[in-house]
């Protein structure tokens, strides 16, 4: 017969209090930088989630998306940027992105979804700006890939090339206003944050992207 009991042994209550799971929920997330930490639940991006950044053309969507990556890249996560034709590398450095851990695929053409999927296998965050209107199916496949690989997808959505599927977190820029002195000083973005779960209600926040030093900060 069995030398040991086939049922699970019951742990003593004092041991049970000290036992912890092998993989903490904390390791299944990707850190977020300053103004965003306060705006999403637990202040992190859950692995496997898709973030959509929606903004009218030229009103700060790209800066916002790049600033989401900065904290993670300084902590050693790799990031990929697909479909941003002429990335402003200096602006990225000012936002606090560690450029040594960023791979760019500037002009993927029709193969943007495939390139993003390739990168998702190897890097933790991928920013994608589709050059043409993304189809239902390709975006669905990309989001499934993200869930499977445990990475995070940041999709840029502009009026002409809007992201067709609902996201886990949606940042929608509703207003952008420049503060100026003798030069461009800071841009105040009104961002509507919504999404699944705790974010279902949605709320408006004003953040500064970029400020006088080119970084992102809360007002």
């Amino acid at each position, binding site marked *: 017969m069995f030398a040991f009991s086939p049922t699970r042994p019951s742990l003593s209550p004092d041991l049970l209090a000290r036992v912890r799971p092998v993989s903490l929920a904390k390791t299944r997330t990707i850190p977020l930088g300053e103004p965003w930490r306060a705006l999403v639940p637990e202040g992190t991006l859950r692995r496997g989630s898709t973030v959509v950044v929606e903004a009218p053309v030229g009103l700060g969507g790209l800066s916002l998306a790049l600033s989401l990556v900065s904290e993670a890249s300084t902590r050693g996560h790799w990031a990929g940027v697909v479909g941003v034709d002429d990335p402003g590398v200096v602006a990225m450095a000012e936002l606090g992105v560690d450029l040594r851990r960023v791979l760019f695929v500037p002009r993927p053409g029709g193969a943007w979804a495939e*390139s993003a999927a390739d990168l998702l*296998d*190897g890097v933790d965050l991928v920013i994608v700006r589709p050059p043409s209107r993304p189809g239902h199916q390709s975006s669905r496949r990309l989001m499934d890939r993200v869930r499977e690989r445990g990475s995070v997808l940041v999709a840029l959505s502009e009026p002409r090339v809007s992201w067709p599927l609902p996201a886990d977190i949606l940042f929608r820029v509703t207003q952008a206003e420049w503060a100026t002195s003798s030069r461009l000083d800071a841009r105040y973005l009104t961002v509507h944050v919504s999404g699944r779960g705790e974010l279902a209600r949605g709320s408006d926040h004003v953040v500064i992207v970029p400020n006088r030093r080119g970084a992102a900060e809360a007002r």
Partner: protein
Amino acid sequence: MEQLLAVWVESLALEQPDGSTLRDTIALADALEAMCPFTEVVRLGLFVMPLRGPSRFFGGDDAVLRMVRQCVSDVVGAPTKLGVAEGLFCAELAAHREVLVPRGGSDAFRRAQPLEVLGRKDLATTCRRLGLHTLGAFADLDSARVGERFNKHALILHRVARGELTELDTQRDPKLARRLAQLRGEDDLFDEQQGFFGQRGAEDDRADAAARRVRERLGAEAVVVSNLQGGRGPEDRATLVPWGSPSTVLRDRAPWPGRLSAPSPATTLAHPVPLQLRDEANRPVVLNSRGVLSAAPAAVIFSSPLRREIIWFAGPWPLVERWWSRHRRRAHVQMVLASGEALLVAAESSRWWLVGIYD
């Protein structure tokens, strides 16, 4: 496109087991770098450098070629083949054929090459049976036809044949720069690729593998990485280089008086777009030789129907560089349009260019 001088040293192409090849490569790279700091070791036996700068400095293309040839025979003691053309692919071919392709002639030069230079035997054989003998004939094929006959890799070769890509994925040795640096004892330049305890982390290897896959899909120049260097405008400071090319040291330590201060535009156009600035009375706004605007700009015109109102502008901030040259007067102007977009515009060679978008 830039004219490149390719230096092919046959005796360094095959690595000897005693390590002499790498030592000679380093010695030769150092000697060539003394002539031109942008010299690059592409793979064993193949060196390239831009021709324009050294040619102006040493007094002509022939002087540079003579000096490089002398340099190779002094350092390595071996004969060399030199060639000049635009783009790495053409430059290497020019070196093997020992020709100097004049500016603008690289297109015709490439189109006249036999198909074997692409390095795929099956493709060359099939095309010859179809009556296509040169790269030009192959390039004229519709890419959809190429795609249905051959595999994905052939599509990349097709783009190289058309001149849309300037190098083959087999030309570069991505590991070589690192090996040379290790041998020099300067491996810390590569510390960005190392993990927390100094070794390369698993994350870095995964990212490398992903980059390699995208490269196989889209061609050798599809994946780029960035570096910051010294410079005044954001368009000067950023460099995007193909992934796998030797990394340059971050040299952003010197002060750059007149540098444009933060924030910088999130889109920095690699190829600035020409535009026109107009004042209230719809007259063109120009930057005069003292660096002052002729009138306050009121509208920006990208192409004739596309006219956007300017609600705020600042500048011009002149970039005082090469003041001895009257043609190089540069100045930056920041502006906010009525639609809320902010742009960075530069004046250069008496025209206005869109260099950045704060998007």
